[in-house]
Every structure is written in C-alpha cells, then in structure tokens.
C-alpha cells in the first residue's frame, strides 16, 4: 500500500458565511492521476484554492506527506513541491513567456537547473519556444494553458494541481494537453486534476471522485466510474 501524498480529512471551507466545501475527504497517492469531476458550482475550484490556502480551511485538515499544511501560507507551498495551474490560466499577461516560466521557479535558486527545466518545458510544448519572447497575453487560449501548466511545472512539483485545463479550448487542443498531462505524470509527478470534462479526465486518471454541491458523492477507480450508469447519465452525456 502506497502512502498518500495528499490527504484531505473532513475539510470544510468557504467564503465568509457561505460554506462551499462540506466535509470533503479525498486522497491522492504517489504517482497517480486523480480526477475530481463535477458540474458548475460543485466546489471543485474552491477545493483546489483551499489546498493552496488561498481560501482558508474552516475545519478539518489537509495533510501533505502526513504533515498538516493548511496553516502554511500559500507562498511557501511551491517550495515544498505543491503547485497549482489555476482555473482560467491566470498567466502573467504582460510578461514574456520566458519570464512567466521563470516566475514559476521563483523559489528555486539553482539557476543552472532552472534553465534545464525551461528547456524541458519547451520540449513538452514546442510552441512555447517559438513564442518565448512574446507576451503571455498575446498567446492563444491553448498556448496560455500550456504556459500555465509549464509555469507550474517549473517549481518541480511533486504534486501538480490542475484546475480545468480544458476550459474554453478546442477539442483537439484539449486532447493534446491531456496527452501531456499523462506524460508529466509518467515522469513521476502526481496530478490532481479537477475537470468538467469527465470523460477525458477519467480516461487518463487512475482514480476518480465525483463532486456535487460541495460533497463527494462517489469515489472509485476511474474505469468503474466510466462504466457507472448514473455517472454516465449525469456527467458523460450518455443516455439510453
């Protein structure tokens, strides 16, 4: 039995009086891709924001390698190997692609390895290399998503949090990005993937959680979820 890299134990959080997450418990084991699927307003983004401690936890705890991290400020998390590519990309629009990537390695001091890693990101996303002097904001949506993933990878995360990488992208580009997520995972990065595109994300994931109105309503192996009749009806758009 592998040990969990990330564990949420009965986490409750939200914005002021509005409680969004209600007793969420999930686990991510080393080396796997975990997908959390759910519709609009299910609380998926809030969950990632809570893990990154942008939204504070009201009760429960978040363990990373067995250590509680929910009291740690957001800006130390990339230093211990936990980095997020947030929803809607949120790249730095008026910094160049290269500067964006270097910002991802902000907490690292090993300049030589940073430039090696930038080369690795360019290998993953060759289009970024062609655009490296261009401003982040001048990229297309897909390129921006690649940049956001690349930027998060620059901190050499052990656990990568991805928030809706398919948001607003053409189907072909989504496929490409999911291919790369798989590749990143193969190199040893654990991925927690939050998605509305249930079909694709369950296909690349090993395990999956289904979220609805701030609660986890189902959890299983990704394949089992893909074949689950109710999930099919609700999230996969298959009806018979």
């Amino acid at each position, binding site marked *: 039995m592998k040990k969990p890299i990330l564990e949420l134990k009965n986490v409750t959080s939200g914005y002021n009086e509005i409680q969004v997450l209600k007793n969420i418990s999930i686990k991510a084991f080393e080396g796997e891709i975990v997908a959390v699927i759910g519709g609009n307003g299910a609380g998926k983004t809030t969950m990632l924001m809570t893990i990154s401690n942008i939204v504070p936890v009201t009760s429960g705890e978040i363990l990373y390698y067995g250590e509680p991290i929910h009291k740690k400020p957001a800006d130390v998390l990339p230093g211990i190997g936990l980095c997020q590519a947030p929803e809607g990309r949120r790249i730095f629009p008026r910094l160049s692609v290269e500067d964006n990537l270097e910002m*991802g390695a902000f907490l690292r001091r090993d300049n030589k390895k940073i430039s090696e890693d930038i080369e690795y990101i360019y290998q993953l996303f060759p289009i970024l290399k062609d655009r490296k002097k261009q401003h982040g904001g001048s990229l297309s949506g897909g390129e921006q998503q690649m940049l956001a993933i690349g930027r998060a990878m620059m901190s050499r995360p052990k656990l990568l949090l991805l928030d809706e990488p398919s948001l607003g992208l053409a189907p072909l580009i989504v496929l490409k990005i999911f291919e790369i997520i798989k590749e990143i995972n193969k190199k040893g990065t654990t991925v927690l993937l939050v998605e509305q595109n249930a079909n694709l994300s369950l296909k690349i994931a090993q395990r999956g959680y289904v979220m609805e109105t701030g609660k986890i309503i189902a959890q299983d192996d990704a394949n089992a979820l893909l074949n689950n009749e109710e999930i099919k009806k609700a999230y996969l758009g298959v009806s018979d």
Partner: protein
Amino acid sequence: MIQEFKSKGKKYLIGLVWLFLLLWPLLGINADGTLTFVKAFSVWLYIVCASMIVVTIYIIHKKGLTLKLTKPLSSARNKIYAYTASMPKPLLFSIIGIIAFLFPFFTERYAQDVAINVLIYICLGLGLNIVVGMAGLLDLGYIAFYGVGAYTYALLNTFYGISFWLSLPIAAGFSGIAGCIVGYPTLRMRGDYLAIVTLGFGEIIRIVFNNWMQLTNGPNGILGIKPPSVIIPNFTNGFSLEYLYLKKLHYLYYVALILAIFTIIVVARLSASRIGRAWEAIREDETAAEMMGVNTFSLKLLAYAAGAVLGGIAGSFFAARMRFVSPESFTFIESAMVLSMVVLGGMGSIPGIILGVIALIALPEVFREFELYRMLAFGASMTLMMLFRPKGIIPSKRMGVRSEEKEE
C-alpha cells in the same frame, strides 16, 4: 476630397461645439463674476482656424498627396532610430552623460534651475515608478515621502547641524520607515481602495507637518537650511581642510545629477532582478503570483518602502536646494504631477519616464508665452499625448498588450 470632408464633417462640428461649451465657462467668467461671450469666442475662433488647417493637412495626407514630402522624412527618422539602436549602449550612455555634464557651461541660470527641477522629478518619477509601474500599486500620496525626506534633512540640519551628505541616508531611512508604516495597513487593499487610502495617508502626513508647530514650525516652514557642502583642501596657509557650501546653482545641478544617476542605476538594477520580476508578477495577477511562491505582502511592502526611500532622497535634496521647506510643497497636486509624469512617459520604462518628466516640466516653461492660457495649452498637450501615445512616450518593453486590450 469633398467626400472626406463630409464623412468627417459631422464629428468635427460636434467637436467644435463641445469645445466652445468647454471654453466658455473656462475663459468667459470675469473677475467680477459676470459671464462674457467675446473672450471665449475669440480664443475659440483661433482654435477653429488652427484645427481647420490641421484637418485639411490630415485629409491631404490621407489622400497620399504629401507622400513625396514625408517619405524622405520618415526614412531619415527610421535611419536615426536604427543608428541609435545599433550604437553600443555604453557609448550612448556616455554621450548622454557628457551632454548632462557639460550642460551648465552653456546655459543660463534659468535653464539650470529648470534642469535641477527636472532632475529632482526624475528621482521622484522613478521612485513612484517602482510602486505604480512595477508593482502596480496605485499610490496617490507618494509626495508625502518626499516631504518626510525634506523635513528630515531640514530638522537634522537646523537643530543638530548635521551635513547634507550625512543626513541623506538618515532621511532615506526615515522615509523608508514612513513608507512601511503607511504601507503596513494599506497594502491589504487592492486597486481603487488602495488609491483612496494612500491619498488619505499622504494628506495625513502633510497635515502633521502643518500642525506640529513645535517641531516643524507649522505653515511658516523651516528657514535657514544649509546647502550641501564638500570638503576641499586649502593650501594657502600650509594645508587645511575647508567646508565649501554649494550655494551656486551649477554646483547644485551636479549634486542633483549625481542623485538622479544613482536613482536611475538603482531602479534599473531592481527592475532586472528577481525582485523586479516578482513585482511585475504581482502587478499582473496577485493570486497567481502567490501561488508561484511570491510572498506578496512583504514584496509589496518592499516596493512601497523602496519608492519611499527614493522619494526621501529627492526630498532632502529639495530642502537643501530651496533652503526652506513648508507643507505647501507637498500637496496632492504634486503627487498627481509625479503620477502623470510616470503615466505620460510610459509606466515601467526608465527613458520614458525621463522624457515624461522633461515634457511635464519643460512644457509649462515653453508655454509661458501664452501667459493666461498656459495651463489650457498644457492640458491640451497632455490630452493629445495620451490620445496618440496611450502607453506613454516610450512604452516599457516588458509591458506589451494586455490580452483584453488586444481584441479591440
């Protein structure tokens, strides 16, 4: 050509009517409160004539009739651009430096006075650029730190007789501390709220200067501040060291030049550093910067303090040059002026801000001949500059098009 006039004509007429409605209350109100028509109308007629000529030239230009005239001009301009770009940077800098160094030898008192003003505002503009241009924090109370620097030197000098050079770091430190004190509560806010709160704190500092009679002598100000001095060897009676007070304007010019060059180097180094990039990331997206490991609060505080330190240095030079400080020099309008220099010149770009400062200090001097209409002409030229170069005279290289702006 007539069709061109027709298509543009309606907009042009509406513009002229609007301009008259604007000018009438501006120029038509007499000292006794009566509203006249003639004065505004005559000025308006001048503008109508001038704009007619401009519009005609514009339309002829659009038709391509002036191509013969403008082509050699624009190719010459491009050649100059290419030449300055190909010139090695040290050469360019040294040419500018030599020009700046030789400036007092060829100019009168008046020009030197304006030049010193320009240099002070370069320090201020570049200091504010750290806060507004790099970290993206709109600060409307920046001039308060200029005031803290000025008062620190004034008080240290008049009470304890501490020299300019010694009190310069002390004044810088005090301004930095003031920046931290003001920044600590305010930097929790973002955007518009931050602007309002900094405006308030700026005024608070000025009002403290104005009312703390025992210390600052209130609105009467502090008199008798010594100018900067240098120690020079004197060989007349053997060997002795002597203080020389730099009272003459061209000596002060060199002191200001040294401070401005120091500021330029500091800001250039900062913007190329890791900290500079983190500031820019905060400006672009604070939450995303935090997720990348930027300690946003302390870096914002650092930006605020760094800006305040540069403002404080400029302030103590201001006190030493005027040999008098009073709270009137640190009103909101000064903050607004410095901010417009930064915006006009191009946020984040050092040569841009220097040009912006020169434009905003020099233009009012040029417009002195317009006498009464000086400020009107000044305002009009500022409006035109923003219309034609919305990103500033020389936009910063790092700051390009925002994704939402591009779609237009």
